[in-house]
């Protein structure tokens, strides 16, 4: 029996049975593997860490896309940084009101690989006429683009590796610059219970550029260790404080179907456990 054990932590880790390897590639920069697991479906692993599985990806993608989009309420232009598997693009384009979703992926090969081996993630989203696929470094793009956005979603890898720059203060500053008034930046921020330092660091950097900095959360089973946090940056606190009735109207009007997201979950996801609030405030455990 072939097994894959995640190499994220020294003292513990989750193990998966590999039923069949679909794709494996070791480049100079990263080691990528896609395999089948009978419970989780296709599992994509990058540098020893689970990136996405067919079984639970909907929780991550719905929460990262619909929370900022429905809180904003009038988003037309969306920027996705990373997200090469196409799952985020799929969720964003579910909203009929979106005029254009620009997705900036550093590696064209990731998109091709995902189309071939993870087709259930994108479900044709790459062919949507509203999809604007740019192959570029995310940091270079936000630094140089003349486009402006209502929502920016940073669907990056971990801060150790090529995604590191997407957790920098410089990146947040440029995101703020290219956001329209009332625009929202949402970023994945790791599993807080085991990566609490990331909450402290992100809060510190984000608050330099956004008057309303917050975190919301969702538990994604294969991002092992409890709730994952998503960082939120906006210069209008009213966007985050939208009430649940408004969200319900927007949700219904948007016509989207979801399996995890509800307006109630949306509101509740901003309620955080005390240990995360303390880390946010810079108090270490």
């Amino acid at each position, binding site marked *: 029996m072939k097994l894959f054990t995640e190499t994220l932590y020294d003292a513990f880790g989750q193990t998966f049975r590999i039923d069949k390897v679909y794709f494996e590639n070791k480049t100079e920069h990263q080691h990528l593997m896609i395999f089948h697991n009978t419970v989780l479906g296709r599992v994509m692993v990058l*540098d020893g860490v689970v990136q996405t599985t067919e079984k639970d990806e909907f929780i991550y993608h719905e929460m990262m896309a619909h929370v900022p989009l429905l809180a904003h309420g009038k988003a037309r232009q969306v920027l996705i940084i990373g997200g090469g598997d196409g799952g985020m693009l799929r969720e964003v384009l579910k909203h009929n009101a979106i005029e254009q979703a620009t997705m900036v992926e550093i590696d064209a090969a990731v998109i091709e690989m995902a189309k071939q081996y993870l087709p259930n993630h994108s479900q044709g989203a790459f062919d949507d006429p509203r999809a604007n696929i740019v192959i570029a470094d995310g940091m270079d793009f936000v630094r140089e683009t003349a486009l402006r956005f209502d929502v920016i979603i940073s669907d990056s890898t971990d801060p150790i590796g090529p995604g590191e720059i997407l957790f920098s203060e410089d990146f947040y500053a440029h995101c703020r610059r290219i956001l329209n008034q009332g625009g929202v930046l949402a970023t994945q921020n790791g599993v807080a219970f*085991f990566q609490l330092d990331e909450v402290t660091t992100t809060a510190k950097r984000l608050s330099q550029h956004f008057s309303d900095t917050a975190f919301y959360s969702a538990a994604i089973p294969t991002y092992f260790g409890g709730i994952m946090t998503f960082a939120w940056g906006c210069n209008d606190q009213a966007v985050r404080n939208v009430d649940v009735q408004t969200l319900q109207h927007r949700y219904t009007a948007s016509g989207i179907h979801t399996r995890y997201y509800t307006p109630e979950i949306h509101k509740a996801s901003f309620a955080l456990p005390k240990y995360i609030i303390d880390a946010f405030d810079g108090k270490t455990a």
Partner: protein
Amino acid sequence: MYREKLLQQLELLREQLPGVTPYYAIKAFPNEDVLKILADAGACFDVASTGEIDMLQRLNISGRRTIHTHPIKKDSEIKAALRGGSTTFVVDNAEELHKLLPYRQRIGLLLRVSFRSKSARVDLSRKFGCAPEQVVEIIGEASTLGIPVRGLSFHVGSQSMAPDAHVSAIDHCAGLISEIEQHSGRPMNVLDIGGGFPVDYAGTGIDYASYFEPIRDILAESLPDHIEVIAEPGRFLVARAVTAIASVAGKARRGGYQWYYLDDGVYGSYSGQLFDHAVYPLQILNDSMPRESSILAGPTCDSIDVIAEDIALPELNEGDLVIGHMMGAYTYATATRFNSLSGAQIVVI
């Protein structure tokens, strides 16, 4: 490279040090076939650089089977190690602790302690390792920073001909572990006894049963059951497994000696004669008489490139082979590209 001899050495170590997990020190002979054979036989790996981690990744050997043993690392190397799945790091000073601070939630540490050895040919305790007196302080610092320390490691040096250095270091570490555990109230879980186990270059025979017995005894006597013991054999596993074959490229008579110029030398496979202070048993496939005092020189233009001075050899001709035995450890690993020579080709049998 002989697969069978490599596996014999692994088996010998397992027999002599039962319960001790071997982490092959890749640096000794960084060769993918060796890694594959050892991985299939269940060994783990001691990595010290990003390049070594890359080799394991190419072979799909999980980083969970590694420890990163270089006490001094750049931030980029720490990141590369983590991305390669290597999460246990060796440190020997407080500066290095601070470099690991951003990664504290993912990693475990071994603190390298230095015990000077008189019986090792290569002393590894001068360049790396903290003094035993510093251990409690550095561990206290790690604890303050919130970086988990798994245990201690030491290296008595390379080609350590008597077991005394290991025995005394293990005894010393056992005392330190017990002191640290009492002080912190938390158990440690690893003692890394390094490498340094000798191989027989001189051909005089090494009685491994007697060599390892006191090490086995002190491990059993001094360490509590919950401490996993690991070792980092490099030379011990590969030295015997590799034979180097050079051929005579030309000859000349100079200063009363017969000179033979080979296609491999101290800038190539015989680099260990300089860097590792090794002298390898040589063999000529020709036992004819008479013999005369000869010099074996390497192929480069440098006069230092001499493998053997004043050895009695039969007359050799172009194409005759010169065989170097026990040439696995720190030979090919430290060979240079001087004179743009292509270096030895490795064949696995």
